[in-house]
């Protein structure tokens, strides 16, 4: 047990928490954008799975992880555009459409990926040490010896935060999610913007899938996202629709996931079934706490979240 409490052990858990959390982070940022525009997309899991598969397939075809990532991004965006057409275009129920997308993505990726199971990917995201920063004791090991997708996410978090809060486009995004009628009356195209952010959200979920299939667990496995897409949806609430808090939450989950593996590796006498359960238990605990805090501080999501918008409907 001493081994578990050492600095080295903690550093290794944290260093593993970052890549494990990064896949969730991409998906969570995507869902966050989508929800800020007022659309709930519960299909993240399905989009991630399709993205993971698309990433593997595109890498096998091209031999490049970047082309692979682009493939994952496009597949995720394509999946999300189904949701956009159904919910924004036709005003379908967002919950039903999202759940359908999750089921569809799970089944369809398993079907398409049959021949790819177990095939090694020719290229994966390897760890890159950032000069100078990587040599900082402990911190360097945790933050700056990671793969390229992690570094991209480091930049994406503050950029999205700035985008939402400080730009004119961000103002439109928030308006469409808070009060679509007002945005419409002021000449903002509500439908077009919502569709755009649903598709962007799907693209990020796809990249999240690639962060697993080309990064932490290279190769294709049926159902390999293992519920991370669902966790990402829950995390958006924990994050209070704020990208900075989304990063914090994603790394927390990454930490639980990484810690669980390391604890098993260290031979801690706890049932592995219990350890496997931890991320999901944690999700429930976090949701309870976040919801209570939201109720206490009267934080709400975007006011029009989940509400379809159609102009000529009366009262």
């Amino acid at each position: 047990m001493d081994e578990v409490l050492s600095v080295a052990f903690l550093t290794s858990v944290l260093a593993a928490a970052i890549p494990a959390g990064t896949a969730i982070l991409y998906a969570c940022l995507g869902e966050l954008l989508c929800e800020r525009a007022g659309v709930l997309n519960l299909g993240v899991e399905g989009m991630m799975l399709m993205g993971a598969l698309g990433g593997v397939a595109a890498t096998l075809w091209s031999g490049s992880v970047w082309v692979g990532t682009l493939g994952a991004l496009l597949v995720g965006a394509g999946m999300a555009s189904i949701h956009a057409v159904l919910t924004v275009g036709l005003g379908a129920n967002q919950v039903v459409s999202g759940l359908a997308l999750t089921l569809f993505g799970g089944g369809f990726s398993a079907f398409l990926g049959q021949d790819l199971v177990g095939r090694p990917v020719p290229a994966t995201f390897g760890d890159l040490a950032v000069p100078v920063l990587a040599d900082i004791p402990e911190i360097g090991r945790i933050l700056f010896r990671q793969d390229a997708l992690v570094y991209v996410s480091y930049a994406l978090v503050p950029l999205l935060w700035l985008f939402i809060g400080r730009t004119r486009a961000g103002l439109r995004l928030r308006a469409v999610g808070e009060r679509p009628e007002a945005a419409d009356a002021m000449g903002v195209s509500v439908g077009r913007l919502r569709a755009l952010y649903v598709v962007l959200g799907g693209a990020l979920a796809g990249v999240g899938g690639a962060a697993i299939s080309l990064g932490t667990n290279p190769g294709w496995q049926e159902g390999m996202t293992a519920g991370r897409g669902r966790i990402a949806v829950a995390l958006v609430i924990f994050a209070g629709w704020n990208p900075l808090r989304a990063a914090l939450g994603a790394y927390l989950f990454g930490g639980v996931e990484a810690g669980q593996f390391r604890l098993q590796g260290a031979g801690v006498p706890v049932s592995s079934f219990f350890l496997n359960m931890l991320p999901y238990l944690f999700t429930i605990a976090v949701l309870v706490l976040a919801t209570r805090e939201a109720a206490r501080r009267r934080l709400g999501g975007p006011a029009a979240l989940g509400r379809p918008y159609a102009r000529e409907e009366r009262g």
Partner: protein
Amino acid sequence: MIHDERSPAIEMRGIGKRFGATAANADVDFVARFGEVHALVGENGAGKSTLMSILAGLYRPDAGTLAIGGRPVRLRSPREAIGLGVGMVYQHFMLVEPFTVAENVLLGQERAGPWLETGAVERELRELGERYGLAVDPRAPVWTLSVGEQQRVEILRLLHRGAKILILDEPTAVLTPQEAAGLVRTLRGLAADGFCIVFISHKLDEVLAVADRVTVLRRGRVVGSVAAAESDRRSLARLMVGRELASLVERPAEEPHEAVATGEPVLELAGLRAEGDAGRPALAGIDLAVRAGETVGVAGVAGNGQRELAETITGLRRASGGRVRIGGADATNRSPGEIARAGVAHVPEDRLADGLIGGMDLAGNAILRRYRRPPLARGPFVVARAVAAFADRLLKEHGVAAPGRRTRLGTLSGGNQQKLLLGRELAGEPRLIVAVHPTRGVDVGATEAIHALLRAQRERGAATLLISEDLDELLALADRIAVLFEGRVMGIVPAAGADPERLGLLMAGVDGGGVAPVRRVAVAGG
């Protein structure tokens, strides 16, 4: 920007618009000029808002043509309308509440650069505000503003975008008399500067005071367009309704009131406190009593605790302090069912949210208060025959115009829905009636019927708490009027001979000579 002084600002010809089976507008001609305030009047449902939403680009007409500044146009969106200088202030403000005033003004405007910069806009808003008497802090988040201030933001936003034609949909309905007078001054000033102002209203005094011309709509059609100077209440009312109506023509305040009743107190509130939806205090210690046979009116600008007051009394909202006593027994924080069984009728503000079920049939709605007990219930079953008899009787007694009890409630007009609701609530001879805006969104005929019902209840000996934003209604029905401001009772005045000016000051938080702190902390608007 089109701005030709000689052409009419707005010229609508043969406009038609249907919603499902209802024709909201049919063959409507409407012409308004720059430099005039043009009132558009008519009953609820006469098609005023629909016509103006077409002009503002929100709805597309099924028939007819539209010219702005003499040039024929076809509007496909509000953006195009604003581009042509047409802007509308809706009844329900189109503001994003978490945004600041400046952010709301910037929304949808094309400006250079990706960043959100509010400095220049804030300066411009201050200048515009000073020029037209529309003072408001550009940095304040909209949810912290009073309803009157939010309305100013709406007008400022349109001016800032260069609108030359302003449409205001019942703008004074949510204002104190003083705020309304300020708005009228602003509108006259804008007209003098060459703007075209279209003013939608059904308050005839106000229309005659502010407008140069008046166009009257009835059932979707124009029934007259006259110069305000050559018109009066009586002729406008006749045009609006199509028949003489006593209550519209005579000042209701002049109707005789009996002296304040001396029955037992039925409702007693002591230091009642409650929180609003946003968690801010909405009721800050209310003391009020209503006696048997007495109607106490509650006046106030929207959002000063009226809704919370009704909800706390009827058990829909938790009281965070103080006591509610009904018929001498404590009823604080009892369940809505217990309170109803104690003899309390509730006419809620939003009848389709809190009073009726739109998707259910009339019979189902009629029995909501009594389906648990015989004769309507037998064990776990509902007795169909008893339900039918009860529902049919209710519909007949209250003159609900509907094909039958199996009709879906949502298909009825607001007036008929409200008559059914009142019939259901009053069927058990309640000792206390809590009525919130009982005639809102209801046509004139139904309004008369509802007023008669409430008067009859008062004579029967029921205590009534009547919450309304319509001062005329309160003066007509109430014995005493309590004025709410920021969750407190600012004053209680006898309705007989009450001075609307003094009521207006109380509604603005001004008590007699002294000025109360008019900082809005307690209440979110809307």
